[in-house]
């Protein structure tokens, strides 16, 4: 099936979960990454159970913060 990751079209296997996509995309420090699927924000504990579908748009957003 075809999905879009960070705006780039990709062909992936059916039944791919968000957790597997994070591994396949070599996402660094995944514990500090927020994932959206079709602009919906996922909780980290939903990564394993969220199965992607044809045409989904996925974004990885790195946590950005700090303090003085």
């Amino acid at each position, binding site marked *: 099936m075809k999905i879009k990751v960070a705006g780039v079209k990709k062909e992936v296997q059916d039944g791919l979960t968000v957790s597997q996509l994070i591994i396949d995309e070599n996402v660094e420090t995944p514990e500090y990454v927020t994932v959206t699927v079709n602009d919906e924000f996922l909780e980290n504990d939903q990564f394993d159970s969220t199965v992607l579908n044809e045409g989904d748009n996925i974004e990885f957003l790195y946590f950005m*913060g*700090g*303090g*003085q």
Partner: protein
Amino acid sequence: MIKLRQSDYEKIVAHAKSEAPIEACGLIAGEISGGDKIIKKVYILTNVDHAEEHFTLDPKEQLKAVKDMRAEGLVPLGNWHSHPVSPSRPSDEDKRLAFDSSASYMILSLMDKEPVLNSFHIEGDKAEKEELVIEQG
């Protein structure tokens, strides 16, 4: 080297002053040419911590900004935030939470009468000041 337009510098300073004593924050985007980063757009985002000593970019606004960058053919170059009462240098927490070593981390200090803006490359617990050029425009 990282280049910032004077008008964008003033935009950052004005927003940071208006938010003080809360830390202000945002994103920078542009292009990379010959190893130089050229900032073409500065994004002002909400500090969802609403704190004087911490900041976290609003993820929803971050998503919107990332899409805007893509639509305008810009690449993400890093982020900026203010230190209302401390110097323009990364704190231990800034370094600990700097996950992207390709990003530039700009810090605006408002502790003195004249604002001070510096840009840093952060990798692990090492922070190195980048050459920042503020250009007319």
